[in-house]
Structure formats: C-alpha cells, structure tokens
C-alpha cells in the first residue's frame, strides 16, 4: 500500500494513503479502515479494580455495566489533564483502559502511584493491536468476519468475540463522528485481519485511511485531541467536557479543584469557530476579540464535509458565545471568523 509515513511519537504512522480528503469522504459515506495500533492499553484487575479506576478517572466507572465503555479523564490534583481515555468494564474485577500512545507510560505511572487499593495493574500495549472500522457501512463490513451480532452492540458498548477466527474485543466506539467499531486483537493477527477487512469492505469501496483524515474527521465531530484541546493546564470544564465529570461519585484525583472551579465558574472555554475571511486558523494561532489578544487556536483545518474552514479555540468565558465575531491571526494578518455552535458535523441518526 502506498502510504506516506510520518514519525508519530516513535511510531511510523501513515498520514494518508489515497489522499486525505478522499479518505475523509470515504468514512463519511461508506467505510474506512484505520490502523491505530499505536494506542496504549492498560488493564486493571482485582477485587478493588473499580475503586482504583474510579479514583483516577473523572467519569463514574462504578456505574458501568459489564460490556460497557465510557470516555473519561485522567487528571492531576490541580484538575488538568494527564490524558483522555476510554474505560471498558470487562468483568466486575477487570477494567480495560485505552489511552493515547504518547501518554501511555505517563498514564501507567500516574495510575500506579495512585494504586492504594487491592488492584493489579498491567501495561498491556504490547499485547494489543487496534484497528478502527469507521463509517455508515462499518457494521456490514465487520459483520462478514464475526459471528457476534454487531447490531446488538450499542454505541459505547463492546463484546469479546472473534474476528477472522481469532479472539477480539469489538467495541462500538470511534474517533470520527460516524458509526463504527474499534477492534482490539493480538498484534501478530492484525495484518491478516486488516487484509480481511479490506476484502470484506471491497464491495462498499472501503479505503485505508491515515492520521490526516482521522484528524479532520474528529475535528468536525469536535472530539478532543490530547496536546491540542486538552493538556496539563486545561480542565474538563474548560474543554467543554463537563459531562465526563461526576463530582457526586465520591473522591477522585482532581475532584477538589474541579468542585472549586464549578463553583467559581471557568475563566476560559473551548469554542468552535468558522473562518469568514480567507485563511485557515491553525493550531497555536492567536485569537483576538475587539483587536486584543484573547485566546489561541487548538486545532484548525478545512472541514471537507462542510466546505468551510473551521477550528477550535480557547477564549475568555465572557466572549465564548455563538455569533460573536473574532479575528484569527493568520501569519500576521487578522482574518475574520465567527464563533459557532458545535459539533460542526453531526451524522444523521440511523436505526
């Protein structure tokens, strides 16, 4: 496969195969395949596994059912992000965490240091490869390779079953704003499963997709990217991720800082914008309100599904309202933009 590779946190990753925009549209219209084996996995087991997971994350792991997954935050005491993660409840005594590649050692160390419970931690990244099958025809593609009834797996649920005849964890999750699945398999099986998926999706026009399309797809759906929208100086409330914080669930790392921030209100907030003038607000560009520096762009790109140039930025909470005109400094030129409501793209609900 003619992929253009880039070094991404030590992994050789494909940026694009057939072309970023082409891959983007393929995922929105039919089905695309992503090799996301770089993602990290951490397993937590034991009688107090849930207590440890609940203590180090913002969402309520204790409220998960077996076979259910949730998006959550790992925070420092001051309320800033260590990472954003997916928590899967495998059994009452087994939780499976999917974490960002570049953060996996840091995350593991962070959780280990907080493990004052009867829980066993296992750095499992070497045992899993991950393939994401995303798009409206993802289910029909994957269904050909598994006896599991995929229509019975709801969004943010998962099942341990088989894909291509080998054990796989099949989760109805994704990072594109489309329906789809993320499959966790043994690394030595993943090249074969990748090829089987390409074959299974051939009649639908399946295409392998790179990091470039993954970024435009997640941006349109306003999904956060660590290092951009979220990092150690940003809290979930600032990042518009308050829904992943369950202050009422009991003690957890960062809770006190978040409770205080909730009481006092956030000073800055993540909002979406559309460029009105000619230009693209890129990551790191300054944002101005009334001619004064007020914030910064966290991600920005043409949005191929919308034919607009969009982005996300932090602004003072008082300025963060849809309809407000702002300016983005694009290579020393102030270009007009407007705050809009998000997500930029929302897929039509299907049965």
């Amino acid at each position, binding site marked *: 496969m003619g992929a*253009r590779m880039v070094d991404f946190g030590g992994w050789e990753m494909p*940026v*694009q195969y057939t*072309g*970023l*925009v082409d891959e983007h549209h393929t995922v929105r219209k039919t089905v695309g395949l992503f090799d996301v084996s770089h993602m990290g996995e951490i397993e937590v087991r034991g009688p107090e596994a849930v207590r440890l997971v609940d203590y180090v994350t913002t969402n309520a792991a204790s409220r998960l059912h077996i076979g259910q997954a949730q998006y959550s935050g790992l925070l420092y005491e001051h309320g800033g992000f260590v990472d954003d993660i997916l928590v899967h409840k495998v059994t009452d005594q087994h939780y499976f965490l999917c974490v960002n590649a570049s953060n996996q050692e840091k995350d593991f160390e962070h959780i280990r240091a907080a493990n004052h419970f009867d829980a066993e931690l296992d750095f499992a990244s070497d045992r899993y490869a991950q393939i994401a099958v995303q798009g409206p025809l993802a289910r029909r593609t994957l269904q050909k390779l598994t006896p599991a009834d995929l229509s019975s797996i709801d969004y943010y649920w998962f099942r341990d079953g088989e894909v291509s005849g080998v054990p796989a964890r099949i989760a109805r999750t994704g990072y594109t704003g489309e329906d789809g699945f993320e499959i966790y398999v043994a690394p030595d099986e993943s090249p074969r499963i990748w090829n089987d998926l390409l074959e299974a999706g051939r009649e639908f026009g399946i295409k392998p997709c790179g990091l*470039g399309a993954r970024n*435009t797809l997640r941006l349109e759906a306003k999904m956060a990217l660590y290092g951009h929208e979220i990092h150690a100086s940003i809290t979930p409330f600032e990042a518009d991720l308050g829904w992943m914080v369950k202050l009422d669930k009991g003690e957890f790392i960062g809770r006190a800082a978040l409770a205080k921030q909730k009481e006092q209100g956030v000073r800055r907030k993540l909002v979406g914008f559309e460029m009105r003038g*000619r*230009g*693209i607000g*890129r990551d790191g560009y300054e944002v101005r309100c009334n001619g004064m520096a007020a914030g910064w762009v966290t991600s920005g*790109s*043409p949005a*191929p599904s919308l034919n607009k140039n969009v982005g996300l930025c932090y602004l003072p909470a008082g300025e963060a309202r849809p309809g407000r005109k702002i300016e983005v400094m694009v*290579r020393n030129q102030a270009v007009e933009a407007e705050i809009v409501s998000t997500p930029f793209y929302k897929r039509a609900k299907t049965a």
Partner: protein
Amino acid sequence: MSYPEDLRYTKEHEWVRVAGDVGTIGITDHAQKELGDIVYVDLPKVGAHIEQGKSLGSVESVKAVSDIYSPVSGEVTEVNETLAQAPEKLNQDPHGAAWLIKLRLSAPNEAKGLLSAADYQAYVGAES
C-alpha cells in the same frame, strides 16, 4: 513521476524554467504529494522583487501550510491567477499549467547552481 529535464530544482522542492531572462517558478510533484489536497495559494503581486532563497508566498493544504522559497531572484512579471480560484490544479499539474509566477531574472546565473532533474530525483528518492 519523471521530473522534466528542462527545469532546475531546489532542495525545498521548487522548480524554475529559464528562458532568456524570464524564469517561471513552481513547486515539484514531490511537494504537492507531500502537502496533499491544496486549498490556498498565496503569491506575490506583479512588480514585487523576489530574492533567491526567500519566501515568495505560501501554499496551504488541508494538512498544513508551507512557505515557497524562490529558486532565483528577480521582479515578478506575471502571476498565475487561475490558482486563486482553482488551487487543486497544483495537485494535478505542478510542472505545467500550475506554475506559480514568472520573474524577470536579475541574476540569470543563479539557476545554474540548482539541481538537475536527475539530481533532484535522486534527492527525493533518498528522502522518501
């Protein structure tokens, strides 16, 4: 992709075609492939003075924005206006219809110090 013999190339992936005292400047096929889908091209105005090795404008793809460094020095005599409306032409015909600007060369010998097609081919071959 074979690189045309009548062009000279830079390691920053621009090309120049010299005819008399006129230099036509563009970006290479390798550059357009690296950038991917191009959405904006910013070019100087006619009459602007451009120096070899300095930025003459930028080209922006969905993925990133990149400066264009001039392979030669001179005064801009013509700008390819079609690229403002149809920047995707740069992905389709970077060595031909999607040239960027024409210069009246102020130092015609500069181009002789640039890479030949074979040298450039070897350079990008080694890079990728």
